[in-house]
């Protein structure tokens, strides 16, 4: 036991003062720091504290509806409930999920895997524990909020599309916004988790359909318990605008069912001949857009993309086919407007073949058509006649005619993706094959719509509409322009008037009405239909079946074009589809003036199997 020595006692006061000084410096630092925080920077931290308590929640604006021409809702939003969890750390979330598992059958491992994916994508956003909550889960969460304060029931709107994939490619679908889309849009338009139009009209009219989000300010605890809403800081969301389509939904459904009755990929479009408004348009096979609205799993998307029949592919505006014999209308137009030959003159005697140099071109009818003038050649779709025309027609003359019908470009349809048609010109061949390295022989195939000419069903339907409406090239469109705004422009096709127009109209009417017409077998009693069949030769398989028509012939209302892939010759398959559609369309005085035809007969008339002896 040591007594303090003299040295320690002498030095003591100095050392104690030093220690006290050091302690005083330390405490002084604390005082200065606290002064800085609590007095100098008080306002700033007070604001942080207020912000802390506030959670600003974004309320997505409901998307506008899509309606058909009668105002009927085709696409709307269905309410569905989900249970979300506010969380701060992964451990919090895991604890809550495990605690929940004691009451509700939930696979906590799966849920946490979903959580990890969620966190990666959305950061700190509330995690949907039960994205599709049933009544039991909802009532459990509502009753046990004390025990699970971080859980919250949220209602969400989910896009709802028609069943059976009706008009799937036209309507498109919505999907979650990607990071690129967020970055590409103006600021604050989208946040992660928003849905936006990804395809079809949903995408084309995104700006109209998209709602304006509101906000809900809630007082929150750090663990995510909501204490109440602060109305002064909250705003209601505004729904997006509805879009009104030219579509007649009943007819759309019917057209889809007609195409879906066969496994063959097919596309069809029906136009209002005067305005270009699309009454029905279908592409098959199709997908279910509802699956996208729910948030498709990656594997399902992969399956859809890998499917060889390409259900995601919009054959209405993206599939180009050789227009085949439907193109003979344009060739006839070229002949008439350029006065290449006298249309009444019997130009050829068709024996089923045509010689050009040392090559033999065949007519579709092996035994031949006999003597053919322009009218009978169109009505019988005689290839030999048109080979002869091809021999004597300049590339650019035909190209100009096709260009007049808009085959060289896009139709301007209001869909996000549309492909152009193709019109081969002299320049085109020079560029592709080299100057002087191609011959007139190419024109033989071109003149029967089989060479380098390519078109979508939209191009062909529009061509038919132009013949029907007296020479106007309309712009096909799904969505009606808002009332009071200018209707889509129409372009006058030069020379498609007077005798030329009358000749083409008569020719197309004869295709159906004259007994030797290739679509005579599909005529509808009581309704005059003008049409043209076609067979697109397909190097990869069976021929594609074309048919285009308008009706009623006397006072045209609708024009249509139908293509069924790999369906064999001419109008065998597509013409009966058109017949069924038109019979339904004009049935019972829907559109047809005069007394209605017998509904029984009309109902029975649509037969999808070609009758025996049918001619293409």
């Amino acid at each position, binding site marked *: 036991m040591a007594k303090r020595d003299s040295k320690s006692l002498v030095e003591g006061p100095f050392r104690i003062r030093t220690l006290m000084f050091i302690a005083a410096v330390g405490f002084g630092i604390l005082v200065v720091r606290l002064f800085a925080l609590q007095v100098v920077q008080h306002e700033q931290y007070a604001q942080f504290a207020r912000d802390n308590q506030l959670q600003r929640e974004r309320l997505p604006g409901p998307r506008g509806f899509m309606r058909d021409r009668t105002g009927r809702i085709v696409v709307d939003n269905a309410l569905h409930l989900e249970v979300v969890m506010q969380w701060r750390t992964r451990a919090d979330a895991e604890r809550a999920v495990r605690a929940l598992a004691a009451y509700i059958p939930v696979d906590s491992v799966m849920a946490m895997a979903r959580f990890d994916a969620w966190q990666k994508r959305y950061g700190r956003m509330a995690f949907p524990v039960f994205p599709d909550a049933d009544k039991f889960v909802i009532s459990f969460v509502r009753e046990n909020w004390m025990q699970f304060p971080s859980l919250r029931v949220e209602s969400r709107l989910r896009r709802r599309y028609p069943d059976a994939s009706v008009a799937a490619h036209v309507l498109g679908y919505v999907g979650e916004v990607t990071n690129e889309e967020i970055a590409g849009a103006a600021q604050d338009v989208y946040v992660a988790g928003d849905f936006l139009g990804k395809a079809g009209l949903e995408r084309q009219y995104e700006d109209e359909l998209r709602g304006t989000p509101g906000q809900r300010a809630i007082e929150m605890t*750090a663990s995510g318990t909501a204490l109440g809403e602060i109305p002064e800081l909250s705003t209601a969301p505004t729904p997006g605008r509805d879009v009104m389509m030219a579509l007649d939904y009943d007819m759309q459904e019917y057209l889809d069912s007609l195409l879906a009755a066969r496994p063959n990929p097919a596309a069809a479009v029906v136009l209002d001949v005067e305005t270009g408004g699309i009454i029905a348009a279908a592409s098959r096979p199709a997908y279910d857009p509802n699956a996208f609205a729910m948030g498709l799993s990656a594997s399902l998307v992969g399956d859809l993309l890998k499917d060889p029949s390409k259900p995601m592919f919009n054959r209405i505006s993206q599939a180009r086919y050789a227009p085949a014999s439907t193109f003979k209308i344009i060739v006839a137009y070229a002949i008439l407007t350029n006065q290449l030959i006298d249309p009444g003159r019997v130009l050829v005697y068709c024996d089923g073949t045509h010689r050009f140099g040392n090559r033999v071109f065949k007519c579709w009818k092996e035994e031949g058509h006999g003597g053919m003038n322009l009218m009978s050649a169109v009505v019988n779709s005689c290839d030999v006649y048109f080979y002869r025309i091809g021999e004597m027609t300049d590339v650019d003359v035909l190209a100009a005619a096709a260009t007049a019908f808009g085959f060289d470009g896009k139709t301007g349809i209001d869909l996000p993706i549309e492909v152009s048609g193709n019109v081969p010109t002299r320049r085109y061949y020079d560029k592709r094959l080299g100057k002087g390295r191609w011959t007139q022989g190419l024109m033989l195939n071109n003149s029967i719509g089989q060479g380098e000419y390519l078109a979508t069903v939209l191009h062909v339907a529009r061509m038919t509409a132009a013949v029907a409406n007296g020479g106007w090239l309309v712009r096909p469109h799904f969505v009606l322009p808002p009332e009071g705004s200018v209707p889509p422009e129409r372009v006058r096709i030069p020379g498609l008037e007077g005798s030329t127009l009358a000749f083409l109209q008569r020719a197309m009417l004869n295709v159906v009405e004259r007994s030797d017409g290739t679509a005579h077998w599909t005529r509808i009693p009581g309704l005059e239909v003008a049409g043209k069949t076609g067979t697109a030769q397909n190097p990869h398989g069976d021929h594609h079946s074309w048919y285009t028509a308008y009706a009623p012939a006397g006072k045209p209302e609708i024009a249509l074009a139908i293509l069924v892939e790999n369906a064999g010759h001419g109008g065998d398959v597509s013409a009966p589809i058109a017949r069924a559609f038109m019979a339904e369309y004009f049935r019972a005085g829907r559109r047809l003036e005069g007394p209605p035809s017998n509904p029984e007969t009309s109902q029975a008339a649509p037969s999808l199997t070609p009758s025996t002896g049918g001619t293409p």
Partner: protein
Amino acid sequence: MRLGRDFDWVIVLCSGFLSMIGLAVVYSVSQSVGEVSVVAMHGTHFTRQLVWLGFGLLTMLVAFAIPFRMFESLAFASYVACLVMLVVVLMLPARGETQRWFIVGPLAIQPSEFTKVAVILVWARVLSTHRADPNRVRTLIPVFMLFIVPFALVLRQPDLGTAMVFAGILLPVLFWRGFRGLHILFLMSPLVSSVLIIYGENVTHNPWPFGIFIVAILVVAYLRRAYLVESVSLVVANVGIGLFLPALWNHLKPYQQRRVTNFLDPDSDKLGAGWQVIQSKIAIGSGGFDGKGYLEGTQKALEYLPAKHTDFIFSVLGEELGFVGAIGLLVLFAILISRALLIAQKTKSEFASTLCVGIAAYFAFQVFVNIGMTAGIAPVAGIPLPFVSYGGSSMLVSCFLVGVLLNCAVRWSEY
């Protein structure tokens, strides 16, 4: 010993006020949303803290009643007992990421808290003998050994904060025993260098603080008239660390590096440790000059404050009682610490004197690091605020040490 005259009422009043403030704040914390679910278990933190305070008073009485010479003879025994506890707690299965507690029924005992008392006792014992000259290596080696063993064990838990408390106690004690200031610099400088280097390389990406520090060492050594050998070895040691530490650092696994950088720079991890500090600063800052009012703290009530009844309790105090309340608390601690130092000066026993300096250092260091941490100027370390933070071990230790102070005060003339 004359109880009437020499009993230090100021210390009793200070620690009494501090405990009352602590209880009041713990009560306030128990009024927040998240507390509801805890109640069912073992009562609120408030009632539990009340019980601990009762035990604390008992401990204080015992520490006061037993003559301090008994502590001198028990110093080594208590030190060894604490080391055993530290070893045992390391061998127990880990609770979460750390191994700091013994769980006995409803109690969680933290041996590292008691080790703080044990090291104060054992250093006082070793350094208070006549032959002990802290400027001699012969004395320093045992002192260093006594330091490094608990330091290493606590570091293993891992609890760098508590380990640093040992250093925070040892340096003032050595200084009090006549250790030369230059030697303290010598001891401290490699540590400071390592921190500066890691900080410079990983947080600020700025090597200059280290360079300035080396120059500062040389200037101090020159002013203090250090021997050439001393100056050279100082620079060699620090530059050596500067050269080898980066290589050593790269040997660490990423999570180990992260642990160190988080310690040095909490803002780098805004959702983890950084989140605590940010929220704590918001609480204190939003309290303003006179606070939001007792029980009115929003940061507290809405659960934004982590560990708000233990390590971060000062944030709640700062939020509800404001700058005024915080200064009041600091004044109470300042009085307590200066009383301890005055007793150290007055007492005739070498042991008791050293003991009192150790106790003053304990309070000063804990208060500085704890409040500094909540105010964002000290790293986040699991160091409680004496008397105020909820927790049995800390309360018992604080009460015991106050008892020892009173003990030394009344027996000032004994040796």
